[in-house]
């Protein structure tokens, strides 16, 4: 076998082992077919559909204030971006392409992907998480199966809400170093859209989908890394979703209307005593923040070496070092053996490349760790800062602009002409929600 291999290696230097025949019968050679890649115009069609859907969603949320319209748009997005486009290209994954383009100069970022990254964010800076409302197929899928929403305990909600930021950091770290697109690889809903996938991801997709029946949008709230970016952008949005079309009468009907825990109750200015206590706590937390950053950075640096093994070149270099001294395998070779053979052809190159990647991982580890520290620090600070609020209003960062709460507001019902305006002043306490709406 080895001899044959040697022979073939020698022969491969020759021109061609068997010269192509001269057919006496004039046989025409078939042409190797090359079915074209998906036409570029279709990629730009996707961008166009994204732009139009975003515009339509803004109109539906802010002008029409229509939940029904958003449901229709959600179904369309689910069918188009989900089941037709198989969940690819999507804004959630596009952040990794942008990170890779920043980290690797040789990577050419397709413009359509860049548009998918930028458009929803640009909209969020002005109008909040409109993308989540009815354009994102992941959000639409979870939103449409939400049948019996349960309230997540506030403490658990606050703790879980840091996860998207950590996932975002990890996604950027692995993408920018060119190791893996973990956000795509571990996406739970793409197997649903494709109706096939790895067993682990099919199972977790099914589990998350089952959970979405009772917990509103678990992926969006507690995992989605792009949602974390949108949350930051939406926090400073110019136009915000308001429950009431004009002024809040504090009737409390919308109190429990939000299945995503985004509704904020009116809050009085804290008394002087609690105020002083909160101030002290805030002071300590602000002092703690640099410590968290430094500690996180150091931890990130310590874990950068094992994390770098996710990069194929680093893991191959690892294999190469471990296999040093052992003779080359003969006989049937596994893919790993073949990769090792390749590494043995140019060991210095592989080792140098791996070392370079590990250096980048060390820097990335510091940044990622500091990011984790920052996330925890800012979360701690944000839970100890109290903002006085006069009305019931959704938190602009957490609100998915799903338009569910609108129908709970009596002022909105007056606007729509469902109830006459006089009932509000005459019998305000008796007003209940529209029939068929479950307020529990």
């Amino acid at each position: 076998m080895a001899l044959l291999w040697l022979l073939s290696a020698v022969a491969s230097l020759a021109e061609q082992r068997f010269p192509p025949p001269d057919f006496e019968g004039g046989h025409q050679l078939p042409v190797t077919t090359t079915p074209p890649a998906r036409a570029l115009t279709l990629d730009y069609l996707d961008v166009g559909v994204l732009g139009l859907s975003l515009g339509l969603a803004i109109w539906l949320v802010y002008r029409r204030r229509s939940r029904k319209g958003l449901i229709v748009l959600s179904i369309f997005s689910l069918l188009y971006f989900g089941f037709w486009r198989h969940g690819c290209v999507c804004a959630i994954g596009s952040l990794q392409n942008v990170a890779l383009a920043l980290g690797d100069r040789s990577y050419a970022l397709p413009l359509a992907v860049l548009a998918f990254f930028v458009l929803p964010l640009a909209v969020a800076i002005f109008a909040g998480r409109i993308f989540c409302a009815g354009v994102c197929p992941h959000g639409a899928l979870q939103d449409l199966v939400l049948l019996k929403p349960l309230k997540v305990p506030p403490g658990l909600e606050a703790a879980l809400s840091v996860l998207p930021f950590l996932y975002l950091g990890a996604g950027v770290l692995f993408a920018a170093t060119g190791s893996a697109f973990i956000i795509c690889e571990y996406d739970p809903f793409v197997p649903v859209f494709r109706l096939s996938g790895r067993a682990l991801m099919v199972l977790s997709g099914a589990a998350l989908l089952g959970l979405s029946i009772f917990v509103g949008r678990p992926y969006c709230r507690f995992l989605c890394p792009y949602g974390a970016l949108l949350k930051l952008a939406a926090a400073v949005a110019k136009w915000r979703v308001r429950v009431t079309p004009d002024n809040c009468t504090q009737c409390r009907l919308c109190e429990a209307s939000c299945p995503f825990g985004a509704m904020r109750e009116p809050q009085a200015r804290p008394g002087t005593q609690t105020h002083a206590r909160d101030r002290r706590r805030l002071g300590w937390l602000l002092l703690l923040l640099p410590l968290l950053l430094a500690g996180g950075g150091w931890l990130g640096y310590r874990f950068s070496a094992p994390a770098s093994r996710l990069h194929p070149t680093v893991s191959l270099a690892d294999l190469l070092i471990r296999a040093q001294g052992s003779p080359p395998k003969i006989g049937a070779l596994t893919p790993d053996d073949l990769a090792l053979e390749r590494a043995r052809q140019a060991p210095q190159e592989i080792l140098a490349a791996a070392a370079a990647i590990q250096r980048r991982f060390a820097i990335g580890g510091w940044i990622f760790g500091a990011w984790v520290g920052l996330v925890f620090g800012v979360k701690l600070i944000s839970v100890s800062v109290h903002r006085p609020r006069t009305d019931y209003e959704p938190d602009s960062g957490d609100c998915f602009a799903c338009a569910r709460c609108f129908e709970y507001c009596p002022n909105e019902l007056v606007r729509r002409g469902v109830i006459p305006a006089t009932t509000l002043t005459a019998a305000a306490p008796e007003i209940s929600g529209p029939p068929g709406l479950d307020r529990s």
Partner: protein
Amino acid sequence: MNPGISKPSSVTRRQFLRDGARAAGLAGLGGLLGLVAERSTAKGTVWQIDPQKCVRCGNCALYCVLEQSAVKCVHAYALCGYCQLCTGYFEPDPNDLNTGAENCLCPTSAIKRTYIEDPYYEYTIDEQLCIGCAKCVEGCHRFGNGSLFLQVRHDRCLNCNECAIAKVCAGDAFRRVPADQPYLLKTDTF
């Protein structure tokens, strides 16, 4: 402090901060766009296998996200020797040179063998059946002209953000190529 006066001023301050943050966010997004746009391509990219780097390990058949891999064997007919004893078609030491399954390398009999004229046979790939396992590619590479090789077929490929096969490719043969030139066909032997 009169709450009647302090309240509107605090709202204004918050408004000011929010406007500032929004402007900063827009500037940041614009900056990022500028930075990334110069490294971007309007053409779009797709995944392809460099046949010169492929080590025919068999991972293509196993790791594609599609149930049946988008990687198929393709045939560069101009390089083929049209051999009667095709080492891409027949097992090593076949019992007989006929189309019996026990003599064939291909596990799905995706290679069709057609008699052209003595002693030449033409080998064509049925892509409906091919699973991209590279058994024939290995046979053709090792003892033949190397006219059979693997390519990502773009009528099937979903063009994932990160190709699941590329991640485990033993030869590091996968790379992103411009979408308007999506194939790396063999024009030379080996």
